[in-house]
């Protein structure tokens, strides 16, 4: 086993598809939480393999997409300052702020660098003591341990020129917003396998009970998703609403305890604004007082800044599963990956970008089903 190609086996995929078809008797709507899962589903056409009675809607699990406009603007303001090296994961660079994006700031002469890991940004800070190095710490629970470690290490080695612009969000509060909405039609969830790798899935159990909704922790390969859908549909048909774990090769019920411990040392839970959705109570992370000196917002004096989002972009409805990308009047016309109005058209994990990339040129046959690798 190498744990990748095996889970793309077309024969096994067909068998799971058949098993789902045999199980379903009534219409069901499921939501996959994570943008990585959305990407796999659209790329491999998994939603189109399913019986008509099973509908997949795409969830809010794309950190690039939910980072609020004002934080993008803060990033642009900080990156444009002289003496700053601004480090970010690559997919944040094209997210539109109120005016321009990080690429346009870089083109205008700012030192904006793409890093693979937040520890790369710590190394850049150690190598450039005369510069201020800022890391754009975005992500869900999956990325929090890595970002926490960068701050922990910076404090340990006494770096005075490193800081983080934090835009960390948490999955369970967003699920509760979706389930509590009066127009919710999600009946079952595929929870995000890597978020749960870090956090475990105990915190999902009260949500399953309270809203009577099955939650299946699911991986990211085509077979993972098909098995997760099968398990979720089986629960719905049997009238059960439990938390089950499809992705047990990586996820344990208690999660990764050492990672949770460091995250709890460096970050605390706070209210966070989600792009297109608004503020969600206790839905994000900020630095604890012990690590407050590494807060880029305070260091660069941008804490109080706010911004209004473009009213034409319906990304909030798309990310809550209320609309499909094609239902947006701007989709593929005024909003494309080259000229995005909203973040879901930017990130490869954004639902709008995934539809645009894999569905736009279709003439009836499946597109992209045979290609390898995921970005």
């Amino acid at each position, binding site marked *: 086993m190498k744990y990748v190609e095996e889970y793309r*086996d077309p024969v*096994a995929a067909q068998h799971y598809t058949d*098993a789902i078809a045999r199980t379903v008797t009534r219409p069901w709507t499921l939501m996959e939480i994570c943008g990585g899962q959305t990407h796999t589903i659209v790329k491999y056409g998994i939603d189109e393999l399913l019986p008509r009675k099973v509908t997949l809607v795409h969830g809010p699990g794309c950190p690039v997409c939910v980072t609020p406009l004002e934080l993008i603007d803060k990033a642009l303001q900080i990156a444009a300052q002289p003496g700053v090296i601004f480090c970010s994961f690559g997919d944040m660079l094209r997210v539109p702020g109120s005016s321009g994006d990080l690429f346009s700031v870089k083109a205008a002469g700012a030192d904006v660098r793409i890093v693979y890991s937040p520890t790369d940004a710590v190394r850049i800070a150690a190598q450039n003591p005369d510069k201020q190095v800022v890391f754009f710490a975005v992500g869900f629970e*999956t990325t929090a341990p890595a970002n926490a470690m960068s701050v922990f290490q910076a404090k340990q080695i006494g770096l005075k020129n490193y800081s983080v612009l934090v835009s960390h969000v948490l999955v369970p509060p967003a699920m509760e917003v979706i389930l509590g909405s009066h127009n919710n039609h999600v009946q079952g969830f595929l929870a995000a396998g890597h978020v749960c790798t870090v956090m475990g899935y105990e915190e999902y159990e009260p949500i399953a009970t309270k809203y009577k909704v099955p939650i299946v922790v699911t991986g990211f390969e085509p077979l993972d998703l098909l098995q997760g859908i099968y398990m979720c549909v089986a629960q719905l048909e049997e009238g059960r609403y439990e938390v089950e774990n499809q992705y047990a*090769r*990586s996820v344990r019920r208690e999660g990764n305890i050492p990672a949770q411990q460091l995250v709890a040392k460096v970050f605390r839970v706070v209210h966070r604004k989600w792009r297109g959705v608004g503020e969600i109570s206790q839905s994000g992370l900020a630095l604890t007082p012990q690590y407050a000196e590494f807060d880029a917002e305070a260091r660069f004096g941008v804490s109080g800044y706010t911004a209004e989002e473009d009213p034409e972009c319906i990304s909030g409805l798309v990310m809550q599963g209320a609309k499909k990308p094609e239902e947006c009047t701007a989709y593929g016309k005024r909003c494309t990956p080259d000229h995005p109005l909203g973040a879901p058209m930017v990130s490869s994990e954004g639902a709008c970008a995934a539809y645009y990339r894999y569905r736009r040129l279709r003439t009836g046959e499946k597109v992209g089903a045979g290609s390898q690798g995921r970005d």
Partner: protein
Amino acid sequence: MCLAVPGKILSIQGDDFARMARVSFGGIVKQVSLAYVPEAHEGEYVIVHVGFAISLVDEAEALRTFEVLKQMGELEELDLKAGEA
């Protein structure tokens, strides 16, 4: 953004939070922090996200996706070794 990929640990050096591994992702070798998987050993597979291993792959659990199909009588013709290429 939450993309994480499995890789095989080739060698390990360092201790505690400085514990690092050379990890092979289908032949591409990268340095990966093992700070969060202190139980990982050489030769095992870890799931890696932005330079950090976040879990140790459980091989027995990994096979269950295929065992479920076998129990449903669906999998006679599927050769698990097909994915080794």
